[in-house]
């Protein structure tokens, strides 16, 4: 019961702040709304019994990604955009139709969907006994060690790429 209440609170705030990200004319306010939305998503992860992912979400998204966005807003000195200038005016009706079709089609599919596949090993009692973070860590360093290494290499490449791209040639 209380879980239902909190689910609705978090999702309503998440949707409203997501709308504010898209339809705000001030980039700084968009970034702040993005923080709010990411925090709600972290809370949703807690409701889904994965506190580790919630912590990672707060660290990486709120702590790094949005700060990076705010830095760029500051560096580029972006001002509040004028009304009627911040959207693609010509494409607007087409986009509205596309999103509505997506909304009705996929939404009805989601409402009708039921889980029929067999469930896996990691039931809630197992996870509560072992701890979800421990299970995740063991899997990451045994079964998924190769993707883990690939992703760490990718992070290094992205780091070098970001430095090279912003390097000023004299």
């Amino acid at each position, binding site marked *: 019961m209380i879980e239902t209440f909190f689910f609705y609170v978090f999702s309503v705030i998440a949707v409203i702040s*997501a709308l504010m990200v*898209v339809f705000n004319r001030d*980039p700084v306010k968009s970034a702040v709304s993005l923080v709010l939305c990411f925090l709600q*998503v972290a809370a949703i992860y807690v409701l889904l019994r*994965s506190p580790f992912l919630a912590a990672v979400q707060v660290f990486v998204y709120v702590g790094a990604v949005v700060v990076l966005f705010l830095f760029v807003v500051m560096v580029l000195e972006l001002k509040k955009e004028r009304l009627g200038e911040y959207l693609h005016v010509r494409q607007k009706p087409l986009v509205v139709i*596309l999103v509505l079709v997506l909304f009705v089609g996929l*939404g009805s599919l*989601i409402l009708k969907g039921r889980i029929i596949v067999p*469930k896996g090993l990691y039931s809630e009692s197992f996870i509560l006994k072992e701890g979800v973070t421990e299970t995740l860590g063991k899997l990451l360093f045994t079964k998924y060690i190769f993707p883990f290494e690939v992703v760490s290499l990718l992070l290094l490449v992205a780091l070098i790429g970001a430095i090279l791209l912003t390097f000023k040639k004299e």
Partner: protein
Amino acid sequence: MITVNHYLLLSFIIFSIGVTGVLLRRNILIVLMSLELIFNSVNISLVAFSYYLHSMTGMVLVVFTITIAAAEVGVGLAILVAVYRLRRTVYVDELNTLKH
């Protein structure tokens, strides 16, 4: 009782908002922010499936997705800053050098 459909619906609504932002906004910074919204909605649905199907694969995948999203933002914003230095604009419809 919250079922997996509730989480999927929430994820789908945030996904639609993100798609609207990518298609509708002219500021490339907000387009990148909307991309982050899409990433997050996919993460929600992955974790929801992982929880309701009693499987850990979704959560492991979300760890990788968050890493890749961080890398994507780093490179994307670097490209944005480089383009801004060259063209002095952040509007996507004015960045049409390849067309001419």
